[in-house]
């Protein structure tokens, strides 16, 4: 069995699912497109045989002619089926981002050089996608991949196939792109906020600033420029604009070593949650890992860099 498998792997790489990974883009050609009759095709062939014997037996030439015509069309559909896949190019493969456990959205481009191809089916992970590839253009198939672990995830083997036009023949080719998709670490559900070095000492105490907080009665020593003259005119006393500045969001300094007594995966998922929270709340953050440091910054690029580093922690 093993020898057969090895032989099949060597000789018929597309026929088997064992085809080694190959770089994109993949161009489909006759060496890797396989074709076999479907169950319906076989049954129809048997029926054609019955028709043939019947026509010959009754020496009925008109019936024989009809049988030949139907048989000829059926046989021709094999070539049409082949042409559906022949020359297709499986080009770009892109993926969105997903954390482990979520589904990863993948975009696969299938292009045709000249003719339009209809009824092209892509089987991925048990789901089938039917697309039409326009002539000289390409179509993007979107599908979701389930993810379980952070880190690189291989693109699964995919089968491109078709039964066009009559459903009598199935033509197929296995695709196994040499491409890995990155899955971010799972963020922990809930947990403590990161330790802030400044502490809570001055939190909540308003500080002078540029924003108008309220109006209050004049106290001795208030600068003249803070007096709200117009509202004071309608009042019996002088009113003073009480200006304050909101406490600025502290930059988070996320540090691998700040957590004690946790295993690596927990640390990674906690850091991932902190990075998520920081990114979501528009905060600036830095991330220190045992083998790298991402300085204080914010934005998508920073986020993806940090998450990638976390995802790829050994």
């Amino acid at each position, binding site marked *: 069995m093993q020898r057969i498998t090895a032989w099949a792997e060597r000789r018929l790489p597309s*026929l088997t699912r064992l085809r080694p990974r190959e770089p994109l883009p993949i161009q489909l050609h006759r060496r890797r497109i396989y074709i076999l009759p479907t169950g319906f095709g076989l049954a129809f062939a048997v029926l054609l045989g019955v028709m043939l014997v019947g026509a010959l037996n009754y020496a009925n030439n008109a019936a024989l002619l009809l049988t030949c015509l139907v048989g000829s*069309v059926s046989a021709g559909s094999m070539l049409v089926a082949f042409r559906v896949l022949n020359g297709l190019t499986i080009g770009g493969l892109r993926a969105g981002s997903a954390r482990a456990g979520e589904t990863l959205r993948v975009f696969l481009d299938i292009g045709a050089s000249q003719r339009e191809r209809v009824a092209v089916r892509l089987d991925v992970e048990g789901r*089938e996608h039917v697309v039409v590839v326009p002539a000289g253009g390409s179509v993007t198939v979107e599908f979701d991949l389930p993810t379980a672990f952070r880190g690189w995830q291989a693109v699964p083997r995919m089968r491109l196939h078709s039964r066009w036009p009559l459903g009598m023949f199935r033509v197929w080719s296995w695709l196994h792109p040499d491409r890995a998709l990155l899955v971010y670490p799972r963020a922990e559900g809930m947990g403590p906020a990161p330790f802030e070095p400044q502490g809570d000492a001055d939190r909540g105490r308003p500080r002078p600033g540029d924003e108008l907080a309220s109006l209050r009665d004049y106290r001795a020593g208030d600068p003249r420029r803070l007096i709200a003259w117009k509202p004071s005119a309608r009042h019996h006393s002088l009113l003073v604009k009480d200006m304050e500045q909101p406490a600025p969001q502290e930059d988070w300094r996320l540090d691998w070593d700040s957590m004690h007594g946790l295993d690596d995966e927990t640390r990674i998922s906690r850091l991932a949650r902190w990075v998520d929270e920081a990114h979501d709340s528009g905060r600036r953050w830095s991330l220190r890992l045992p083998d790298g440091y991402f300085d204080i910054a914010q934005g998508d690029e920073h986020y993806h860099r940090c998450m990638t580093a976390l995802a790829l922690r050994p």
Partner: protein
Amino acid sequence: MSRFRLSLRERPASEPPLTPWSFDLLCLTMAFVLGVHAPHLPWWLTAGLAVVLVARWQQRRRGGRHTPIWIKLPLIGLLLALVILTYGSLFGREPGSAFAVGLLVLKLLESDRLRDARVGVAFAAFALMSALLFDQGIVATAIVAAGVVPAMMTLRALETAGPRVPSWRVELPPVLLALLVSVPLALFAFLFIPRLSSPLWGAPTMDRATTGLSDRMAPGDMAEVLTDDTPAMRVTFDGPTPIASSRYFRAFTMTRFDGQAWSPGFGGRDTGTLEGQPRIHYRVTLEPTRERALPLLDMPPDAPTDAMLRGDRTAVANQRLEKTYNYEASAVADYRLDAALDPLARRATLQLPDRVGPRARAQAAAWVSQYGGDALAIARAALAMFHDGGFRYTLAAAPLGRDRIDDFLFGTREGYCEHYASTFTFLMRAAGIPARVVTGYQGGYWNSLGRYLLVRRADAHAWTELWIEGRGWVRFDPTGAVRPERVTLGAAAAAAGDGGGEGLFDAAWWRSTRDRWDVVNQWWNQAVNGFDSLRQQGLLQPFGIRRADVGDLALVLAVGFAVLVVGALGWALFQRREGDALDASMQRLRRKLARAGVSRRAGEGPRHFLARAARALPEHRNALERLSEVYLRSRYAHDKPPPELVTEFRRGVDELKTRRVVK
């Protein structure tokens, strides 16, 4: 690593229901099948099935899916009962096809899924073919073949093409194209698929009697035949065509008369002697008769191939003629047959039933006493009686009483060839002249376009042959005495009364159209329906194989298939090279330079490569620099290389002649 496995199973476990478009096409296919079978189904079955079909279509249109089992089961039971009640059996061509068509339409009731529809289409193809067992004329075949179009469209519709709305405009042309492209392969297979020389199982028997000649003749039987306008045979003559009044094709002779009907009886001991010249050679394409008799013109000197000549000089084929049959024969126009009559034959041809036609016998006895032994004179007297005795030619003859001879001769006095031939023969026998009834075809219609004689069933005719001392068997046509037009124009014209009047259907335009159409039919019969194992064996004659056997045919079939398949594969595999004309020219330049010793290195750009080539090949330096410039300009200065630059580059490459260098 996953286990090695060929994965061919259907992916989606549950099939989606049929789309309205595919269901409509499926209904259309079924309607087509019902239509092509309608001519031989009982009208009420056709109507009932049509109602079921339309009802199901409507139900499905309104969004209904399932037909409840309490509707389906009784319908199937009803169909079964009706077919058995009508035909008495479920097997055989007619009941079988009725049952199959019924089941096919009922299948629609439960066609909701892909699989049902596929099964339906496959059996529809089978039912289409079975319709050709009833009629394989060119029109019927064309109509049935047209049924392949909706069937194939249904199959296409079952395959989800993708997200787009199907329409006739989009879906029809590819199917027609596919059919058109398949024709060569189909024709090739048709020509070379080895025919069975004998059927594997019983050929279908015609449950319905075909109108045509039979080896039994009773006056009044033939009326249906005489109004049947379908072709019986077509005859081409090698030499000049015999005139209408001498085109007598003999099929049967009958000597025994039981008072009601004539039947063959003893036809003569051996093939009698036949003297005479000249001979007329002709070829006949005979429509299927399901008999063995081959109508032959006048007196044949010998039997056609694969046939036997009987003692009365009629021919029988070796097998029943279930399909169009071609044969060649010759005829002696001016003949003497059986100058000496065998005593047994004389007795057989003088036999008369007792107690039949006493008045006719008395009339015969009167002639005998008047003319003595002069057979010719007696015959002339009888013909004169038919001519002057108030006899009338009509296809709607009054029914005859118990004594058919006397009743006709002295009673109704109206009838057609059968009546006259029968009565005349009786009279002659009563007068002691050996006589027999001959049936066959007389006349025919000359198709000047196809240069052949078309003999219809309506040209069936009966006449008499008398044995005259010293001359042998001589043909007498008593009908001609009553109405000569019958002999020159045909039965219908004779029955029309005035004879030869140009009715609407005899107008010139109609006749020429009919001629043309009959030429097509003739061609179809000869080329397609008449293409049997014998003709197939002769197919390879131009290549030096006199009688191709199954092995030869299979070889040709295999080789031809291989050629066609290679051609088709070429079409399927052909892929235009990626790249454009400029690339193609660049490739040629690269090959030319490689031959001269300068091969392009991996990763080397065109400018560098051509510059290096110019240094290596100083004699082409100017040309190469110019080429380089043109290439760079056309490749990089525009989105698409302008055609004039591409042409210039190609010409430049053409003009560059490099010498092969041997390093």
